[in-house]
């Protein structure tokens, strides 16, 4: 990689052969960096590996050219490019991984009568601790049922509790990720304020879990 930030910018802003050569070099950099950057999510043995890496590199170069004037120079140019590349890459991989999974419950929202998580799957053996934790869970579930809209409940449950990527939910619902983040942020704030009003702020509930775990382990 011979260029520094200023020469990348100069060559990519140019026209003709100068820009074409810079794009060739940028593609080469991406084709070498992306497999390592995405190795946690995309194995080299994947039958679509080469096509995906090429696809991500091409889309990244297009996006970089479109947004070249927005580069503020707060980092190296290549670091900025990698930021764009990993977002494009992970977004594609998330959608590919979840494409077969139905998320119909998100569209209709959960049943308003439902109490999605009213017990622990593997509660502690200590009866006193078990009761305290069950009370904490019941309190949070009350907050979720009373304070959140069905839409907030569905999105919060899918992202925070079921671990479904926001990219996937955003694509299925025709929203963008910023909007979903805001939905979850508002939901978190509502629950937090409910707990504070009830006299049991989240810090107190968390201490209940952490402190007891440490005692049990020691």
């Amino acid at each position, binding site marked *: 990689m011979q260029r520094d930030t200023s020469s990348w910018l100069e060559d990519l802003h140019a026209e003709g052969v100068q820009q074409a050569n810079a794009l060739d070099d940028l593609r080469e950099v991406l084709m070498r960096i992306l497999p390592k950057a*995405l190795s*946690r*999510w995309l194995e080299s043995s994947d039958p679509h590996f080469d096509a995906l890496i090429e696809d991500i590199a091409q889309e990244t170069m297009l996006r970089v050219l479109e947004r070249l004037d927005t580069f503020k120079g707060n980092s190296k140019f290549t670091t900025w490019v990698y*930021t764009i590349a990993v977002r494009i890459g992970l977004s594609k991989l998330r959608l590919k991984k979840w494409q077969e999974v139905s998320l119909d419950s998100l569209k209709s929202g959960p049943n308003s009568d439902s109490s999605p998580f009213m017990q622990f799957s593997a509660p502690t053996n200590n009866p006193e601790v078990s009761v305290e934790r069950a009370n904490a869970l019941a309190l949070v579930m009350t907050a979720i049922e009373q304070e959140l809209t069905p839409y907030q409940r569905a999105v919060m449950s899918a992202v925070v509790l079921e671990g479904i990527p926001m990219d996937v939910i955003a694509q299925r619902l025709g929203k963008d990720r910023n909007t979903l983040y805001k939905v979850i*942020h508002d939901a978190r704030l509502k629950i937090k304020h409910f707990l504070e009003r009830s006299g049991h702020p989240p810090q107190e509930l968390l201490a209940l879990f952490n402190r007891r775990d440490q005692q049990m382990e020691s």
Partner: protein
Amino acid sequence: MLRRIINWFNKKQQPQPIHEKKFASMIEMLVKTEAHEISCNDVGDALAEFAELHRRGQDVKHLMPLVHQHLEMCPDCREEYDALMAALDAEAELYS
């Protein structure tokens, strides 16, 4: 078929269990929730600078607290940050 219908009915009637660790993680998110938080796009714009500062050993939690807080809240952005750090590791290995 009958068994499947019974299983479906039982599943609908019974509350889903949740693991204590997952619930504790959710409570931890509530503890760290702030009235003002920045969006995923804002974080995307600042992530390159944040990553370079972090790699230079700077105290990013205090230099860029809103980005740091968002990365603790947002699993999608956190994954992208991890991938970016892996990209910078690869760059150092390939081009230094």
